[in-house]
């Protein structure tokens, strides 16, 4: 979907910048040239960035334990139960929104207002380091790996712990 969007955007930029598209190259000039009146075309691209962090031993153990993974896969194949039922790509049940202390903002606040978050912590039981062999590898390279793997029993534990922490 993103590619389609970018291609359509590129076509638009071709049009606006007065460049001809290949299909019309021999017979038509651009339909319009509006680069002077739409100076912000293609600019101001806004895109959230994010960082994966990991600190759960259990998900790490699972992610590096082929036996546990095989058992989980067998449970899923047999009767659709087990860890793999915890939702796959990116199920996130707990969110924390936080703001920087004003001392770090240096008078420049990009948020929508004083009650809006600067960052979001999306807590999930996941194994971004699913195929990583070492913890060091995992911690330093996990952001390169988009594979997400949820583990339902631990997910429930996470929910309980978060609830406990937030109530205390």
């Amino acid at each position, binding site marked *: 979907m993103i590619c389609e969007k970018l291609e359509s*955007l590129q076509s638009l930029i071709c049009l606006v910048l007065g460049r001809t598209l290949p299909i019309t190259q021999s017979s038509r000039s651009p339909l319009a040239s509006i680069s002077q009146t*739409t100076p912000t075309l293609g600019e101001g691209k806004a895109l*959230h*960035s994010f*960082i994966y*962090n990991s*600190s759960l031993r259990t998900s790490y153990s699972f992610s590096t334990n082929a036996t546990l993974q095989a058992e989980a896969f067998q449970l899923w194949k047999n009767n659709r139960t087990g860890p793999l039922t915890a939702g796959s790509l990116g199920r996130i049940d707990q969110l924390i929104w936080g703001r920087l202390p004003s001392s770090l903002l240096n008078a420049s606040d990009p948020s929508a207002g004083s009650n809006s978050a600067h960052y979001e912590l999306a807590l999930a039981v996941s194994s971004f380091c699913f195929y990583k062999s070492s913890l060091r590898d995992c911690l330093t390279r996990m952001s390169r790996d988009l594979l997400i793997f949820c583990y339902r029993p631990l997910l429930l534990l996470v929910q309980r712990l978060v609830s406990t922490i937030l109530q205390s």
Partner: protein
Amino acid sequence: MVNSSFFTGGTVTLKTNNTFDAPLINPAYLTAPVDLAILMEGTRAFFRFMDAPAWSDVSLGPNPGFITNASDSIALENFARNTVIANLHPVGTASMSPVGASWGVVNPDLRLKQASGLRIIDASVFVRLFQFK
């Protein structure tokens, strides 16, 4: 950890005249100092949270050195710079603006400015990403 609010604005420009070639996409992350500060503080917040006693049974262990050693902000900055990736929902490259405004690509009715018969109907008309409350 996602930076919900940020200043940085990237660009999408042409690489070639060929419509089917990929464009040049530059997210220009972390060009605003506060954007880096948010990533760093968000990372600190995550490890602060996970340092709670309730997690002790499942924690991987002590927090990384760039968290426990508060004076080593360079290491945390390097961690943020080296691990930050895109969240894959870009907006803003065909911004909507008021009718007659000197900036913007489409009018509030999604029609391309100074052209006829063309509307842009996707998230590229969003001017900014906002964090919802």
